[in-house]
């Protein structure tokens, strides 16, 4: 999968026609074969744009900062990224007319070891769901697979699960990189950071981290698109997908096979009410 040339052509065209102020893509990292997000405003930098199976990051996250929020941005999105973008559009964070979306029919990206990433193996929607221009051949929606780690999690007794998570998350250093890397964590001020809030405790302890991460995962329940930007950003290499995939599987099972961001104007399972909703479980 190498779409570098096509993306460079589109970016040149967009700058030439003055359709965008910024273009967000990927460029080669200087020190190894990995790639980093690349935000340009100067057409001279277009030749450095690349797209391969090393283009792992979710670029929708770059619509969050104030300097791109109200500007016209050209953006490259894979299937999962486009779903996050869809939610940002639905939740009024991005104006559709402000973004030019280059959708990729993704063939899966690689992890650090050079193998196909787990979330790509389990991917339900490799094609971009929202786009202005599509690159590649769409392969359509795939069957939902329950994550292998979640199946394993189910074998741990309920009463031991809190300890299990507390143990895992004891390595959290509360740097909030997960939050900053998530395109859907766009709040003006996170509830966990509010000085006036007495609900959350912000202590940098394992229970404080647990509390923060659990709250975070619940705020993303029914919205997380499994792009794993948070895991890639985490300096402590926490398996954050355990929280999100657990929520996702419960929601998929109980709310008419709901998957986040697949359709426009779908705010997620928690934001709609129907009389047939089950009420016999908790996340």
């Amino acid at each position, binding site marked *: 999968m190498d779409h570098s040339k096509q993306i460079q052509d589109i970016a040149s065209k967009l700058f030439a026609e003055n359709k965008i102020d910024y273009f967000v893509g990927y460029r080669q990292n200087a020190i190894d074969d990995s790639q980093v997000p690349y935000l340009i405003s100067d057409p001279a930098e277009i030749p450095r744009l690349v797209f391969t199976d090393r283009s792992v990051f979710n670029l929708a996250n770059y619509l969050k900062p104030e300097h791109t929020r109200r500007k016209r941005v050209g953006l490259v999105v894979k299937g999962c990224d486009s779903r996050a973008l869809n939610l940002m559009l639905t939740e009024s964070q991005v104006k559709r007319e402000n973004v030019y979306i280059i959708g990729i029919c993704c063939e899966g990206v690689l992890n650090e070891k050079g193998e196909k990433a787990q979330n790509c193996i389990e991917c339900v929607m490799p094609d971009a769901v929202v786009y202005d221009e599509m690159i590649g051949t769409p392969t359509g929606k795939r069957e939902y697979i329950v994550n292998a780690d979640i199946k394993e999690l189910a074998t741990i007794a309920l009463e031991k699960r809190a300890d299990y998570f507390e143990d895992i998350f004891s390595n959290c250093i509360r740097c909030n990189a997960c939050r900053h890397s998530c395109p859907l964590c766009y*709040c003006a001020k996170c509830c966990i950071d509010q000085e006036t809030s*007495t609900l959350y405790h912000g202590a940098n302890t394992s229970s404080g981290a647990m509390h923060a991460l659990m709250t975070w995962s619940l705020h993303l329940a029914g919205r997380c698109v499994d792009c794993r930007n948070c895991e890639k950003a985490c300096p402590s290499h926490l398996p954050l997908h355990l929280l999100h995939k657990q929520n996702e599987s419960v929601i998929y099972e109980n709310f008419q096979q709901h998957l986040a961001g697949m359709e426009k104007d779908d705010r997620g399972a928690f934001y709609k009410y129907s009389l047939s909703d089950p009420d016999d479980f908790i996340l």
Partner: protein
Amino acid sequence: MARVGVFVCYCGANIADFIDVPAVVEEAKKIKEVKISVLYKYMCSDPGQGMIRDAIVQNRLTSVVVAACSPRMHEKTFRKALSDAGMNPYMLEVANIREHSSWVHQKDKKAATEKANDLIRMAIAKSIANEQLHEISVPVTKRALVIGGGIAGIQAALDIADARIPVTLVEKSPSIGGRMAQLDETFPTLDCSQCILTPKMVDVASHPYIELIPYSEVIELDGYVGNYKAKIKKKASYVDFSSCTGCGACTQKCPVKVPNEFNMNIDKRKAIYTPFPQAVPNKPVIDATHCTMLLKGKCGICAKVCEKGSINFKMVDEVIEREVGAVVIATGYDLWDPKPYEEYGVGRYKDIITSLEFERMVSASGPTNGVPIRPSDGKVPKNVVFIKCIGSRDEAKGIEYCSKICCMYTAKHAILLHHKVHDSHAYIFYMDIRAAGKGYEEFVKRAQVETAATYLRGRVSKIYKKGDKLMVRGEDAQIGQVVEVEADLVVLATAVIAPKDNPSLARLLGVSYDKYGYMSEAHPKLRPVETAKAGIFLAGCTQAPKDIPDTVAQASACAAKVCGLFAGDTLKKDPMVSTINNEFCSGCQNCVKVCPYQAIVTEEIPLGHGSKELRTVAKINEGVCQGCGSCVAICRSMAINLAGFTDPQIINEIVAI
């Protein structure tokens, strides 16, 4: 430092019998913010409230906790006591130790006492974080919407309109009048139903303050007390009412005949029809389900004979909007279908009819010109058996409740039968005679003595055919024997039931209804006219079976309630509404989506101080907000707070237990 007063109520024996009240009082004293903790037999009484007022002044209290019954009962009472003592009324917290503890834990005094302690601790902790709040004033739209144009709706509309308040009266059928228009004479005075009803119907049509919208239904109601917005669907009548003179040429010439529901399908009406001669408005409508022009595109005779050209086959349903401040529901009743009484041969024997069919027959303007006949052969019946409680008080086949009016109208039918057919005889099978009401018992006596109706106490077990007669076999419990009566006609007093559309209407209006489909009142004794939703009232059989005097009384009560509501230019509203902290709002608009009252809109505010760039945030319309808290729960950024239930208050409560 907060200074809290705790006032614990015995509630006579209601609380004191099941909770160790003195221990609860002592327990509260252990909390350091509590400056006074006392108990009294009836806190809601004047001396009880006096204790609170005095304690507030003497102990310089900053908040008050009353441990008593549900806040639904007396929160307002105690708030008033607080403001009388010069304290902000919203510094009150009520710990409900009656409904939530003593009543539900009557078998375990120790546990009930512990729970009461917990409830009081929570209330104390919450009250410490209480903030001073002030009532909100909202403007009132002084127009009432009355749903249903029976006698209840007519009376309510007239009484409200007489107070010079505009009324919109919506009636489902082509004419107002309702069930009462179908009746012949009315108990207990036997005055003619039409004669006393039709003048009122005409008054409705001619009243300058009443807007009558017939042949239409309410399909949507948004808003809140004082400011509702109703959407009304005017069904296509295919007749232009403004030019139609009601001459009746169209109904005469129409070739399509369909069963006449006004006459209980005893005779036929046309596909273009006015329901009855005295109809208001006296304009015909076309029944789209039977008109051949509308169904097949052939005929159009009515359009040809209409001199005014009022027939318009292209007419479509129209939706209109009205802004109203209050709503009166008066949808009336239906009658129970006696089909389950198979042993009576219902449906098999033509000469078994329902009371309303009998009523139409004895009506002078009815299908048989006031003479009761046997549907099978058209002969005038001599022996008529009336059977009461068909469906009523019948858990097996019908409904559990008593329909209230059948005893009286059956007595009336016996008298009317005697009036119309002098040599007839009425037999009445009954379970009890329920004749409570002014002149009612005397009326039943009149049926028994004057018309010599035979009252047989007992149930009918079987009806079978013998020749052209019906043999009614039943028990006469007073002589303890099975009796058989040879009848020409059998009349079943079928139960009164709620209209089948009541539940869907109730959901649309946001009011509650009971298991039978009747609309629920706010309190069965003390608020029988109001629903639990402010500004929506009940009149007549939409709430429960009622006779005409009760219905009219309740309709007038509704009018008094509506006039009371509209007495001022603004309405006072509890200040428990949501507020948005713009600093934290990310503008995701989830709150806009979850708000059931459409109380949240968006607004554009500057991005930063003095900035020209704008960002979108949510904005609460506090007049519309009902304080349900849905937006608070959905907001991820915790930008929304509900006054009276703020995060610190809730956290304090949780920490306290």
